[in-house]
């Protein structure tokens, strides 16, 4: 089998900060290569170097060493349409406002029978959009496809199916697929080889369970017979739930089942088409959205944290907070230059600073490695100790199982999980 991608002693740095050091790999046609590492280890940077986006679009990076695709530089391969990239932030990557418009703009006739192509992209789930972009990358004619953090988007139920398809597609079309992923344990069987960018472990140790209260005294949020209809489609059907102070609740389900819509109702961002929502006067909410990931006013990490501390009269030490959330080394960085995982940790740090009584997090594990997940669980436990409420929506079933109360959302209906 011929070697398509050759990387020899690759080092990448930005502003004198080394991100990748002395990386050497060779990838043959039909192979799926999995690149792993901790949050902020340089997985996305590596994909951007392979696809030529660094230095074509991101000019500040310094690249040493050799990298070739079909004997061409990544930039040349990019201009010849030999490489494709599926990013972590899918919404911004779309050119059209619906998948059908996207297909029309890129000149592909049909794709993705499992997705409603005429829905606005903000009405489709992150996972559905990711699968759509993945499909268009596969049929677009590129020979090297870089996929960034697929497991943060694709639900637990579909991972195996998607990767089986990727493997057979790569083999039959003699493609190279490079996957950047921190949760390698779920897909390692599909990887021809695994490249570690740092010394972090790929196996996730058992995370502690969340110690929520069993005897809840008062209600923080209550939903009664809530329905959501959009364009004649019933997204939520008769949801009734009551969430008390000190409770930890996980809502799980497949991509596109309505998890984000339900969280938006709980946070008061969206209004139900029918039904009753009661948010107690004692409830001070904090919402960490899945999209946009970067919802901060641009400044350094430290400045954003200080701004929230000032507004919310937080009297603790900001440096300590950043250290707890593993952001101390990034405190001077611009928030928009953070990796998705680090940006999510910053959102959680702001939730801590805000001293809110109810924390709502959409896809809390998005872009997070094992160490960061452990930090998240510890923080959630601290919230719960202080009788705060934690509500999350996640397609990561192993993370949802850490919660005392798990709800499964299916076909618009909410069921209590075992």
């Amino acid at each position, binding site marked *: 089998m011929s070697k398509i991608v050759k990387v020899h002693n690759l080092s990448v740095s930005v502003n004198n900060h080394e991100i990748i050091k002395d990386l050497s790999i060779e990838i043959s046609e039909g192979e799926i290569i999995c690149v792993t590492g901790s949050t902020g280890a340089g997985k996305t940077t590596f994909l951007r170097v392979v696809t030529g986006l660094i230095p074509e*679009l991101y000019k500040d990076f310094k690249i040493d060493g050799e990298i070739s695709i079909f004997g061409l530089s990544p930039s040349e391969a990019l201009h010849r349409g030999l490489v494709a990239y599926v990013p972590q932030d899918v919404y911004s990557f779309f*050119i059209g*406002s619906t998948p059908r418009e996207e297909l029309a703009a890129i000149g592909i006739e049909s794709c993705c029978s499992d997705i409603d192509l005429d829905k606005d992209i903000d009405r489709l789930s992150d996972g559905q959009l990711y699968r759509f972009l993945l499909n268009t990358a596969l049929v677009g004619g590129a020979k090297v496809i870089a996929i960034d953090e697929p497991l943060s988007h694709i639900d637990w139920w579909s991972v195996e199916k998607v990767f089986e398809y990727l493997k057979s597609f790569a083999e039959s079309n003699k493609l190279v697929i490079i996957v950047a992923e921190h949760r390698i344990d779920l897909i390692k069987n599909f990887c021809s080889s695994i490249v570690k960018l740092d010394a972090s472990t790929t196996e996730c140790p058992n995370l502690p369970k969340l110690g929520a209260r069993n005897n809840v005294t008062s209600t923080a949020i209550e939903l009664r017979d809530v329905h959501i209809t959009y364009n004649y489609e019933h997204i939520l059907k008769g949801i009734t739930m009551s969430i008390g102070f000190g409770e930890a609740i996980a809502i799980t389900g497949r991509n596109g089942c309505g998890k984000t819509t339900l969280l938006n109702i709980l*946070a008061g961002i969206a209004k139900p088409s029918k039904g009753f929502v009661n948010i107690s006067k004692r409830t001070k*909410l904090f*919402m960490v959205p899945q999209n946009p990931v970067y919802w901060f*006013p641009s400044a350094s990490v430290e400045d954003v944290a200080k701004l929230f501390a000032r507004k919310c009269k937080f009297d603790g030490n900001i440096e300590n907070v950043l250290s707890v959330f593993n952001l101390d080394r990034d405190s001077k960085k611009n928030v928009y230059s953070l990796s998705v995982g680090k940006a999510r940790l910053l959102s959680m740090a*702001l939730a801590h600073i805000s001293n809110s009584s109810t924390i709502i997090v959409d896809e809390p594990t998005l872009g997070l490695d094992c160490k960061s997940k452990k930090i998240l669980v510890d923080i959630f436990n601290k919230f719960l100790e202080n009788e705060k409420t934690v509500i999350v929506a996640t397609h990561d079933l192993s993370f949802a199982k850490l919660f005392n109360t798990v709800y499964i959302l299916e076909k618009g209906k909410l069921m209590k999980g075992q």
Partner: protein
Amino acid sequence: MVKTCRVLLEPISTLIIVVVASLTIIFLNNRALLMVLFMFILLISVAISLRIFKAIFKVVMLMMLLYSALMVASQIIVLGFINIDLMFINILKFSSVAILSLSMINCINISKLIEVFRKLSPNLGISLALSIKMMKNLPKVWTIMSRLYEINMCCNNYIDRIALLILSIKAFLFLSTYSLMQSVEAFITRSKILRRK
């Protein structure tokens, strides 16, 4: 107003019909004929989708109110009196064109329009697709951002509320710039596919 009707119309023929009909309405001065046309357009709009008609009607009513106020003021300044006949005809023309265009825009098959533009020039197709995305998404992003800041920031008094608005605007601008950067990333990595006719 981003509601799309169930029946999607052929873009080019619809655009031609709308342009011809609008020009006819603009140059027509017969009150009776204008009234008939106005009623006909109302009927078409309701027939296409009552839901969209309701949304359009609200917008057109607001536009008409502003237009009438401006017209009364300018007539008093220029003519010294109010010409009700002229005002009636102009309002009929204005609202007919507005209701017709807005109803049809909501029912045009945008993806077909992008395909047609793309056949003329790939760049034209991409520009159209991206502009439609921006037009649709920016108001939504603003709504989400302002609501998010309202929920997440601790707002105790009037000054806090002003500071909150400024922060939301700042965050919205930076997020829009970031989204644009991501769109450039999408262009570059798919430039070869995007440019093939």
